[in-house]
């Protein structure tokens, strides 16, 4: 974060000395300039990602023509396929062609599902979103709570206990935690279902968002909602574990950064209640640093999702990406990578903006 703002300030300086009248009016206002700068940087990165994923597909030894037509295809058929899909063109031409398709929203056809990658993403993304959102909510509530608690009880036993808890959350192998919890809650106690999004006997709710719990609620289908919730709770709890650990640590140090400050002492001296001091004064100032971590958590949750979705047979984008990678399904790999990168950039962009809004100092630097 700090390096990024440093880089952008360097750019601002090198762009600097010209007469300010020649610049568009927004340039002199810090916030729009801040937004525009971040946006441009994101576009450059996105472009780089299309380039890398394209080069990756070129490095793969598999022949797309053979993959599409099967081993029995005659050389003439293969040549024809290559001709039609432009596989014999120079790489630059192929890349331009690929980008053209991409900008039209065409990501190609997945070799494993035989659907367009776009349609596949449309059906798998909501499942992951449901999982990840619940995990993030759990992580935020518990992690921030733990962090505040640890900071308030600094160096006393709750702090020490929470430190071990937080480090355990970071250290526990996600797939092992999933296995242990599944064994206990599903196999031994029979409290929760073993995998999937819904019991086989249930029909999914009508598609609105694609998230079963939300859709079921929207249509007032209580039994479906409860069933979907039972399915999602265990995988998202597993997914939340390491994020809880990270958030606890970051919140703690963010709160400690401000808790010693004069204005907090002044607030206490005025006789404000502990709750007002903590939530109104300390947390308000610690919030920007905590929000920054959300971008970090996202990468964390996604890595976990690949593993967790595989264990819980959760038909999400992590499982799709894993299957695509292990079968070298190139269009699907590129689709998943681009999508994830896009979300990552959007999340970081929003986080940067929020940071700028919450902490005005960052805009002018």
């Amino acid at each position: 974060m700090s390096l990024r703002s440093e880089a952008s300030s360097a750019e601002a300086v090198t762009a600097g000395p010209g007469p300010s009248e020649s610049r568009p009016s927004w340039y002199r206002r810090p916030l729009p300039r801040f937004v525009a700068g971040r946006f441009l940087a994101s576009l450059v990165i996105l472009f780089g990602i299309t380039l890398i994923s394209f080069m990756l597909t070129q490095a793969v030894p598999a022949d797309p023509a053979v993959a599409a037509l099967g081993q029995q295809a005659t050389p003439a058929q293969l040549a024809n396929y290559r001709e039609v899909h432009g596989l014999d063109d120079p790489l630059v031409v192929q890349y331009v062609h690929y980008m053209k398709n991409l900008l039209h929203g065409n990501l190609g056809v997945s070799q494993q599902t035989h659907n367009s990658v776009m349609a596949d993403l449309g059906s798998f993304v909501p499942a992951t979103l449901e999982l990840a959102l619940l995990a993030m909510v759990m992580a935020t509530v518990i992690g921030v709570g733990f962090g505040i608690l640890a900071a308030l009880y600094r160096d006393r036993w709750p702090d020490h206990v929470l430190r071990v808890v937080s480090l355990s959350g970071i250290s526990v192998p996600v797939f092992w935690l999933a296995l242990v919890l599944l064994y206990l809650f599903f196999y031994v106690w029979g409290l929760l279902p073993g995998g999937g999004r819904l019991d086989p006997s249930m029909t999914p709710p009508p598609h609105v968002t694609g998230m079963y719990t939300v859709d079921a609620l929207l249509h007032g289908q209580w039994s479906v909602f409860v069933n979907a919730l039972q399915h999602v709770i265990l995988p998202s709890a597993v997914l939340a574990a390491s994020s809880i650990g990270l958030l606890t640590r970051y919140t703690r140090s963010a709160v400690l950064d401000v808790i010693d400050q004069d204005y907090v002492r002044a607030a206490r001296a005025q006789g404000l209640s502990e709750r007002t001091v903590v939530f109104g004064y300390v947390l308000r100032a610690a919030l920007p640093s905590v929000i920054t971590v959300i971008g970090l958590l996202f990468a964390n949750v996604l890595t976990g999702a690949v593993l967790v979705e595989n264990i819980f047979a959760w038909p999400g984008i992590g499982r799709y990406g894993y299957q695509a990678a292990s079968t070298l399904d190139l269009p699907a790999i590129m689709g998943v990578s681009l999508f994830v990168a896009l979300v990552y950039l959007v999340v970081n962009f929003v986080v940067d903006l929020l940071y700028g809004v919450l902490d005005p100092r960052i805009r002018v630097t």
Partner: protein
Amino acid sequence: MTDLETMPIAQKRATLPMRLRRRRLPASLRRPLAITGLVIVVIWVIVMVAAPLIAHQDPINPSSELLSAPSGAHWFGTDELGRDVFSRVIHASRVSLPLGFLLVVIAVSIGCLVGAVAGFFGGWVDSLLMRLVDIVFAFPAIILAMVVTAVLGPSLQNAVLALALVTWPTYARVVRGLVLSAGRAEYVQSVRLLGASSTRALRKDVAPNVVGPVLVLATLDIGNAILLLAGLSFLGLGAQPPNPEWGAMVSEGTANFQAWWIGTFPGLAMFSVVLAFNFIGDSLRDAIDPRSSWGSGERS
């Protein structure tokens, strides 16, 4: 935030409200985490070296005792092929520990090189390299690693390579920042003015400022590296059967659900190693960044 950073700790402590200065545990009891971590790591290293002496049973060849529960003969039970789980857990340490270490070494080397070049040359070299770092950051690491191992063929070596490819950018960023700040320091500028060559300045003045923080980061990362490697092995992209590896063993555990011991013990082993490294790394971080450390008031 800024003025607090520059404020000396003693002064900060003076601004600490009275109610926060409660009685604390004695100093020796408040550093137990680092010591616990160190002890666990040392134990594991001994186990790793002496694995054949500790676990007598064959970790690879099947026997006739399939899926037997933990007992006196088989402390951790046997798996679906009748192999002793205890023996496999012990022998697997010879895979995960050195490879986790190797992975970090490779990532640190690439990261240091890129970061040092970017920080030293600056200008367009810097911008170019840092955009590259941004791109690798935005690329979903685990998916990139999965694709690379799938292309190269699933094996432990390839898993290490693939993970090194996605983990170096963190170091590149840190090293670049450190090189930049050290290079701007007045004493380095003075040495250059006195006619010292840039290599001398880099080697004698900049490098010592970079090594410490990078070592801490690397220690913190060994646990992480072990987890990532085990994750790839769990997905079948790392260690190949019949070789024992913790992640792959947990994966065998998911296939034999009722035999809980197959997956539980390798997972516990992994957990203990990673936790130990994180205990050490966390304490090291305290030493570097006393602001948010546990027990900083006492040391200041």
